[in-house]
């Protein structure tokens, strides 16, 4: 088997996530990579949501819209999502009056659930059982996962779920014999399955983060919730703040006092943190801020995805001060970049912004390997004993003054949001101190710039067409590169995941460049123009709240191939 794409559709509250999670667990236990992503409405019950599984032998962590199997829990969802079913795909749904136009399997999920338990909430488990049967999973494997996932809910509920799954399984088995071609022979590979948010939370813990204050906001809430649930295991103090202003200021306070500290939010909350970012810049306090992008402006489409805040993040904050802006491309990269973010924030005593988006934050990626030695927590502490008389903002050639913490030693430590002297006291000396301090801070960019990773280049030398992207679109671009290759077209990718300051880089010449972005105005292009005097010939932009996919890119370049 090469690829199997499953789309599970239903209303919020019908449990499609649980079906998807169960299936994802099963196939990954069988040694397959699975990319699980969701698109859903901003509501708790009802509406139309989908959960997609992309099952492959090797990780291909990019979204595809079309599916081999459409599991639909209600008629409305079926109507909405049917167009994504491949021509030879199979529909799994409740029985309908209408004659199905396609190959389909009909199972009365709700009726079966009610028969078994008197409660329709088990309908999704019936569907999960049916789906498992369709893709040739054996019952035992299914039951293992059900036990793992639902064991904690008590014997009664667990047994009912077993029964529901079995009923669905058997009902499907009968119907799918002839039409379901899928087999998933066991493979001997075992992938890590992580969402972007989980990867960031784990990366933070690994980096030595000990403090997170945040205010719930989709798609970043799970970073906080994950760390809170694992407070004892991961040892990160978590506080739900009263608002984002408090969140960022608490983190800055904790950072000042020596804790590696972070916050996480989305565009609206980030907007409220902007003054705090400027404070971190002025006081030279390390802080890591995750900005999970979703379509704006304002509340926008709160549960959807976008890359609309790049220039905002780079320019956020009054006054001029150094910062770093990263945009990891997937969960593995998110783990690494988070470690890097904490290290560099501490080394340069600056705010570091990690841009994610709903796709990256909430999708579950399959990762072959997480190399804990690739980026390790690097401490940039100074030994207070080596310092005679301490000045928090001592002027140094590279702009980096030794940083001590209050209470750490006999040295007193000050931080000041006003322009200040070397001790941190307010200055009005415009002739020397004030411009020297400003320069000192901005001078850090010189060292920072040397530490920024170059854009990733894939297939560029041989390519005629080159996609230029950033952040979470990377894997979709690689899908497109593969698709193009299968049509005999050489394409390549230049991908930025460290966006500010931009590294030294020379764009290759005589290629046709296509910028690929999940926004409407082509923000990366603007940035590249400003920085490299480089302008992609074409822009492939998606701004409907859904992620860029390989086929979307292929469609966009059709007229050039």
């Amino acid at each position: 088997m090469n690829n199997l794409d499953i789309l599970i559709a239903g209303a919020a509250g019908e449990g499609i996530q649980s079906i998807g999670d169960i299936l994802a667990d099963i196939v990954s236990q069988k040694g397959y990579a699975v990319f699980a992503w969701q698109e859903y409405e901003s509501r708790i019950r009802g509406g139309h949501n989908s959960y997609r599984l992309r099952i492959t032998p090797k990780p291909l962590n990019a979204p595809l819209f079309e599916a081999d199997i459409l599991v639909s829990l209600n008629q409305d969802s079926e109507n909405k999502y049917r167009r994504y079913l491949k021509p030879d795909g199979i529909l799994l749904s409740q029985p309908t009056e209408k004659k199905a136009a396609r190959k389909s399997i009909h199972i009365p999920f709700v009726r079966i659930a009610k028969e078994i338990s008197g409660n329709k909430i088990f309908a999704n488990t019936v569907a999960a059982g049916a789906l498992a049967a369709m893709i040739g999973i054996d019952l035992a494997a299914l039951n293992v996962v059900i036990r793992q996932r639902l064991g904690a809910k008590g014997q009664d509920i667990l047994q009912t779920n077993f029964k529901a799954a079995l009923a669905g399984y058997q009902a499907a088995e009968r119907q799918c014999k002839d039409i379901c071609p899928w087999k998933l022979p066991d493979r001997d590979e075992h992938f890590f399955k992580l969402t972007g948010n989980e990867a960031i939370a784990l990366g933070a813990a690994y980096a030595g983060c000990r403090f997170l204050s945040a205010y719930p906001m989709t798609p970043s809430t799970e970073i906080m919730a994950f760390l809170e649930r694992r407070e004892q295991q991961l040892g990160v103090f978590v506080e739900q703040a009263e608002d984002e202003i408090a969140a960022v200021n608490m983190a800055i306070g904790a950072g000042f006092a020596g804790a590696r500290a972070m916050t996480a939010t989305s565009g609206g909350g980030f907007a409220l943190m902007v003054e705090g970012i400027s404070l971190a810049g002025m006081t030279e306090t390390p802080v890591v801020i995750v900005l999970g992008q979703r379509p704006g402006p304002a509340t926008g489409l709160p549960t959807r995805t976008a890359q609309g805040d790049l220039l905002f993040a780079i320019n956020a904050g009054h006054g001029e001060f150094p910062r770093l802006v990263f945009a990891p491309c997937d969960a593995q990269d998110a783990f690494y970049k988070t470690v890097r973010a904490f290290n560099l924030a501490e080394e340069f005593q600056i705010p570091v912004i990690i841009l994610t988006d709903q796709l990256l934050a909430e999708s579950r990626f399959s990762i072959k390997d997480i190399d804990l030695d690739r980026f390790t927590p690097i401490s940039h502490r100074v030994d207070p004993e080596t310092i005679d008389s301490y000045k928090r903002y001592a002027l140094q050639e590279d702009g980096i003054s030794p940083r001590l913490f209050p209470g750490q030693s006999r040295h007193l430590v000050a931080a000041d949001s006003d322009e200040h002297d070397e001790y941190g006291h307010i200055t009005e000396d415009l002739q020397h101190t004030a411009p020297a301090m400003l320069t000192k801070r901005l001078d850090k960019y010189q060292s920072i710039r040397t530490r920024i990773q170059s854009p990733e280049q894939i297939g560029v030398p041989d390519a005629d067409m080159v996609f230029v992207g950033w952040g979470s679109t990377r894997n979709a671009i690689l899908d497109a590169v593969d698709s193009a290759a299968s049509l005999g077209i050489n394409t390549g990718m230049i991908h930025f995941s460290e966006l500010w300051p931009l590294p030294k880089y020379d764009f290759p010449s005589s290629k046709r460049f296509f910028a690929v972005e999940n926004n409407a105005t082509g923000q990366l292009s603007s940035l590249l123009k400003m920085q490299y005097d480089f302008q992609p010939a074409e822009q492939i932009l998606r701004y409907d709240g859904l992620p860029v996919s390989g086929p979307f890119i292929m469609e966009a370049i059709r007229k050039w191939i």
Partner: protein
Amino acid sequence: MDMSTYDNQVVSQWCPGCPNFGILQALKKALTALHKSPEQVCLVSGIGQAAKLPHYLHCNFFNGLHGRAIPVATGIHVANPDLTTIVVTGDGDCYGEGGNHFLHALRRNPNLTIIVHNNELYALTKGQASPTTQPRDKRTMPVQGVINTPINMLAVAMIHDCPFVARGYAGEIDHLTDILVKAVRHRGLSVVEIIQPCITWGNKPLTWYQEHIVYLESDYDAGNLTAALSTVMNVREKTPIGILYQKASRSLFAQRYQKLVSGRPLSELKPIDRGAMERILEEFRSTT
């Protein structure tokens, strides 16, 4: 150790004669009495005349953004519970721009002391009304006098079970020192609002203030919430100063973490070690 331990060489930006100097002195006296050495103390302020105080006292400090002293102090306090962290703030800083943080600090009950210099105006920005300006008092804005009802944050504190609520007067340094000593000592959040005349923008002479304060009566029971509330809610001819409300603190902010994980300064904790991290990551790898 004497009071001069806390002196530093920074030239004050306050107006000569400003009662803020009295508060500064009281705070130095209190810290001396508490036998805190400068490196054990961290002052946290926002922006305003009041918020400049940390510059004039030899200790650690974080002079942050207007209105945001409390969250910064909360972060510092969690990161290093060994520090004596004290917020120094103004009526505009704390009750205007920063009102929400004050409210939620009451909910959290961190072991901090919040000192509010209440001059009933925005001094640093040249004399506008503040949330505590009394009705009809004129300010550079509004020139016709204030209409809004003043905020009563001491009452708000009491309602939310704040374990220590006091009012001092900048002109009564010893009395204020005593309050501050007790405030810092008291477990949990302590709120000390200080009547601080502004001799530049205010419109009453210092003598007026001296005449319009009164000590709490000797039989005043600071443990009685109803009485305490009525003391701060009913405007009287003279404003009572002293410890208005005091009770044993309920559980402190961050206590659960400190029990579960560590009570040491967070900067002293090592990152999770590589082996442990590997094991944790394995939870996310599906094996059969």
